[in-house]
Every structure is written in C-alpha cells, then in structure tokens.
C-alpha cells in the first residue's frame, strides 16, 4: 500500500533520489542546534494562528459606537479595527485562545531567534562558508521585530496608538528622508489617513510574512547545502567529515517531538496566561495616554535608548536638523544591527582568517570574540533594562533620575568591563585545560 503510493509519487516527480539524499542528511548532535528549529515551528504557528485571526479582523478605522458584550466600554467611540479585536476576544469561538497564542508566539519567536543568534555567534558558526546564511538570519530577526511591532499596532487600542505616535516621531526625526518617509507611510500627519491602517495590515499579513518565508527558505537551503557545523568532541569529527544522526530514523522523530512540544507550550500559555488584555486599555484617540505604556519586550531596548539619550536637539540656524528621537530610536538600532550583521566580515578583517570552518569553536576557544559578544550583549541589555526604570521606581522606590544617570554611566563602563572579564575567564579556562592535559599525559607516561 505505502509502496504503491511511493511509486506513484516517484513516477510523477522523479523525487526518489532527492528524498533518499534528504533522508540520509546528517544532523550533528547538540541541544543548542535545536533552537533555530524551535523558531521555525513558532513561525509556522504564527502563520497558522494569524490566518485564523484574519477571518475576523477588520482593518478599517471608520469610527463606530460599541454596544458589545464588554460592558465597561459600552457606548464608547472606537474604530472598527479595535471593535473587531474585542469581538475576537469575547465572541468568536476560540478567538481569545488563538489571539493570545498568536501574541505569545510572537514574543517567544523573537526570544528563540535571539538565543539561536547567540549560539551561532559564540560558537563561530557564522564563519565562511556560512556568513551569508548568518546575514539572512540577522535580516529575519530585524523583520521579526518589525512584524511584531506592526501586529501590536494593528489593534488600534490605547497602547497601539501610543506606540505608533512614538514610531511616527522616530520616523520624522531621521534627517532628510524622515518627513517624506513619514508622510508616505502615514499618508498625512499623525495619526495618518484612513488608508494607513490597511497599509499596516497588508504589511503585517502579507508582505513581511512572505519576506520572512522567502528568506527562511534561502536560509534553510544554504544550511543544508553547506551542511551543519559541529563541535569537535571526538577525533571522528573533522573539518571534512560530519558526524551525527541521519534525518531518518534519527532526526525526524526528534523534530516532530520538538514541534509538538513547542506548539503545546504556546497553546498552554495562550489558554492560561493573559496577554495584551486590549479591552482594559480601551480604544485610542489622539491625545489619549496612559502612564507606563511599553512596547512588547523585544522593542524595550529602543524605549530604553530613547530615555537614556540626554534631551538635546541639533539645531542649526533656528532649524532642528536632528530631532532627539533619532539617536535612540533610529541610530542606536542601526548601529547594533550593523555590528551584529556585519560581524563575520569585521572579524575576518581583524583576524585575517579567510579559511573555511566547519568545526565550531567553544566560546572559550576564541576569547576575544566571546569578550566582544558579551560586551555587545551587556550594552544592549543595560539599555533594555533602562526602559523599565519607571516600574522599578514604583516598586522599589529607587529614584528615577538616579537610575537613569546610573545607566548612563553603566552603558559605557560595563561593556568594557564585560569584554576584559570575559576574555580573561576564557583564557583561564583554556590555560586550565592545557595544564590538565599536560598532567594526564605525564601521568599516562609514568604508568607505562
């Protein structure tokens, strides 16, 4: 029976040799190699849940009066978009479950991409011949951030509106191109024309997902064609020989298990833990604001940066050339993404190492890279923490302005410290290993 089906398909596609090859593809073995896979499954989950949401979401900003099931908003003026999200949350079958799962999946998607990126960075997996694969990965991270922001903005609730207002001011702040760009995207001054939300919507459900999907396909094709990297744990693993388990029967059950676990965790979260209770935030009207509005965590570093940059504008001849939001909201992410994205080329330039690398470094094997990576991480992480200084103040009573000044010092001092400490730790670890090696060789020799 199965044989019959296989023959039927093979006769019509000639796919057998390819499938045979794919089934024998070798997966090296380390848990951290699975992180990227989790991100892939989350992307699939996002597309699946997102598709369900499109059946009920309405992208129109035409105002309407609410008379739905959520009594505290009875009679409130709101857009059809926001009303449709209330409807999804309170009336559509499994609507809230799917909406929450979708939102959680976005939060966790970015988290796993970041972990995957850190694994790749600290093991040197990005080196030739995989620098292009790496760059595509970083591009997907950037797109994931943008996609998340658009999703958060679509709902047209109070937090969306405030987030977009900040986005608008950052866009405006970009020298020369800012104003035309903002006008082009928003179709007029904030909050923009009636076609702005439909634009966001099409970008969120079509353009960016397709971009991510296309880059993802390329990314995976490159991974497969260059084969996976591996750690050198036994003499069998060399630059030219991959050691691991075959696709089948080794990797496939494992991947299926991981897929089920990933989706399971996310549906549990979506069913049990509240995320973005938009009915509490209420609809957005220009001028409305709430204290403590925050973006989703993965944009927290930008809020932190906006707060840490001292308030000044670059004014020439009575003309504000560079408004303040530019530094924290546009330049900072540009710098971070440039360093991260171009790292393979920067490292090659500094070390002069132009060789092929199929074996991974352990983080300690390259103390300078690991130190630099830690410095970058500490830098971005501190800026990220600064974004929650207000909450820390409310909870712990630590003065807000003291915190901000503390962070301003720390973001300069701590990365430098992180670099030297990390490099030192790596070197000590290596020295310890060498000493242990000498000792065991000596002991072996004395036993003979």
């Amino acid at each position, binding site marked *: 029976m199965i044989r019959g089906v296989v023959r039927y398909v093979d006769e019509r596609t000639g796919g057998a040799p390819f499938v045979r090859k794919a089934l024998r593809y070798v997966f090296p*073995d380390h*848990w*951290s*190699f*699975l*992180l990227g896979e*989790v991100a892939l499954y989350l992307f699939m989950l996002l597309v699946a849940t997102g598709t369900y949401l499109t059946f009920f979401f309405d992208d129109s900003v035409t105002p309407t009066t609410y008379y739905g099931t959520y*009594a*505290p*908003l*009875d*009679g*409130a003026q709101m857009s059809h978009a926001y009303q449709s999200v209330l409807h999804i949350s309170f009336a559509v079958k499994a609507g*809230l479950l799917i909406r*929450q799962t979708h939102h*959680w999946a976005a*939060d*966790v998607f970015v*988290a*796993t991409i970041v*972990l995957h990126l850190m694994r790749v960075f600290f093991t040197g997996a990005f080196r030739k011949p995989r620098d292009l694969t790496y760059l595509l990965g970083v591009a997907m991270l950037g797109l994931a951030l943008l996609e998340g922001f658009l999703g958060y903005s679509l709902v047209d609730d*109070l*937090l969306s509106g405030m987030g977009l207002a900040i986005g608008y001011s950052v866009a405006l702040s970009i020298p020369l191109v800012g104003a035309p760009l903002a006008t082009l995207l928003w179709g007029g001054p904030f909050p923009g024309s009636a076609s702005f939300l439909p634009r966001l919507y099409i970008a969120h459900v079509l353009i960016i997902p397709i971009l991510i999907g296309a880059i993802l396909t390329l990314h995976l094709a490159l991974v497969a064609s260059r084969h996976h990297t591996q750690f050198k744990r036994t003499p069998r693993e060399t630059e030219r020989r991959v050691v691991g388990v075959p696709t089948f029967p*080794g990797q496939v059950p*494992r991947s299926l298990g991981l897929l089920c*676990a*990933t989706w399971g*965790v996310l549906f549990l979260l979506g*069913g049990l*833990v*509240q*995320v973005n*209770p938009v*009915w*509490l*935030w*209420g609809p957005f009207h220009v001028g*409305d604001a*709430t*204290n*403590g*509005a*925050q*973006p*989703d*965590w993965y944009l927290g570093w930008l809020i932190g940066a906006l707060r840490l940059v001292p308030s000044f504008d670059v004014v020439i001849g009575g003309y504000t050339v560079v408004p303040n939001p530019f530094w924290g909201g546009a330049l900072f992410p540009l710098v971070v993404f440039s360093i991260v994205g171009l790292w393979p080329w920067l490292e090659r330039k500094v070390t002069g190492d132009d060789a092929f690398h199929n074996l991974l470094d352990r983080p300690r094997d390259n103390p300078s890279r690991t130190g630099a990576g830690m410095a970058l991480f500490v830098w971005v992480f501190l800026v990220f923490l600064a974004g929650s200084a*207000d909450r820390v*103040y*409310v909870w712990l*009573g*630590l*003065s*807000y302005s*003291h915190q901000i000044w503390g962070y301003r*010092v*720390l973001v300069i*001092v*701590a990365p*430098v*410290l992180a670099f030297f400490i990390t490099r030192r730790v790596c070197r000590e670890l290596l020295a310890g290993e060498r000493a242990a090696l000498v000792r065991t060789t000596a002991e072996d020799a004395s036993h003979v």
Partner: protein
Amino acid sequence: MTRVALTLLVLVALAAPAALADSGPPRQGVVIDPGQHGAGLVGEGASLYAANCASCHGPHGVGVLKARRGAGDVPGQGPPLLGVGALSADFYLRTGYMPLENPSQQPSRSRVLFPEEEIRAMVAYVASLGEGPGIPRPQPQKGSVAAGNTLFLQNCAGCHQIVGAGGYVTGARVPPLEEATDRQIAEAVRIGPYLMPHFSEQRLTNTQLNSLIAYVDYAKHPDDAGGWSIGHLGPWPEGLVAWLIATSALVATCIVIGKRLKA
C-alpha cells in the same frame, strides 16, 4: 582596578538614596495631654495635633513656611491647615500620608498608627480651624462603569495608568489605586494631593465622580478573560513570562530531546 572601583562607586551611589530613605527618623509617639485644650472631641484632637502635627503645621494650623529644626531634630515645615476642612484631614490621616517623616518627602500610603477615635478627634480639630469641605459621601453604585472608564482615561490615566497600576511622572511616584477606598478617591480628586491636580465640582461633577469611582473599583478586579492576569501592566510582565516561563520551557525541551540521541 580603577574601573572596578568606579563601578562599585556607581552601585553605592545608586543604592544610597534607598538606604537613606529607610533610615529616616522614627515617627513621633502619641502624647495625650488631656485638659490643656478643653474637653470634647475637638479638645482631644487639639492635644493630639499639638503632639504630632504642630512641629510642621504650626500652632493652630497656621503652617510653617520656612523649615526649622523641631523636636528630635526633625525639620519642621508644612502648609497651613486653615480651611482645608474635614475632607483633607480625613484623607491624609486615613491613608497614613500624615504624619510625614520628613517634609521634603512625598507623602505615601503607610500604616495608620492612630486608633479610630483619635483620627476622628484630629479630623474634628482640623475642621474647626476654618470653614472647609466636609467628608464626602460618594455613591459609586449610582455611577456607570463605562462613563467612569472614559472619565478616567481623560483625567487620570496619564498619571495613574489606565487600570490604576500607578507609575512615574517627573518629580513624583504616582501610587497604584488598589488600596484607595471610595471615600479616599472622592477626597483625593477634590484635594489634588502633591503633584496631582485638584478637580473642582465644575470640572468633575459629583455624578461624574460616582462613575469615576465605580470604574476605579472595577479596575481593581477587572474582567480577566484569558487567564492569569500578571498584574494588568501589559508588555512588562509579559516579557518576563515569555522569557522565564515559555522560552525556558522550550530550552529545557531542547536539552532533553537533544540528550536522548547521544545514547
């Protein structure tokens, strides 16, 4: 080495204000001196006032405009209380805002040290100092939560956060509203304590106030469709859950699944 010293210095500098805040002077004890101010509620209030409040608010509530050293080296300074009425005294005493430890510090909710009849006595005394508003009797059950939602968004959410979780504004900590009683909300709105603006009856009628209170009460226990509410603060705790619960669970899964293969 110098870098380490510098970081330590920064950490100490960050921690110092918090530590200082904790080690402020102890609260003054309650000394009752019956007879000196005559009998009755107002009389009892007067002696309580003299013992606990006069160092900052001056004799007979005339206020102390320039800081001066008082008993126990606590600097004394405070606004006059003439005409603030029972409303203000009731609010400041029942929230534990008063007596303040240090006049330069923002009043905040703390444990109320006075028993009920002493509070009533002091309120009566402060009320006797001049013509002032009495204690309000709001009736939130007559208000509408939906109307209150809009009013709260327009007048309060910018400082208190949309579900009253509090926050930071330049120069002040805005308290969460979970502990405020109906009466205290009505009082706070009419007083405008610290940096908060005060809302007159022209700006916010008593009917509107009832709705506002109905909403604040609702926001203490709002509709928690969707599960565990993690504090109604939005993205902040959500990020923690995404990392500490979901992402760690997934990493743990990777470790377990990744391990099985080695065997």
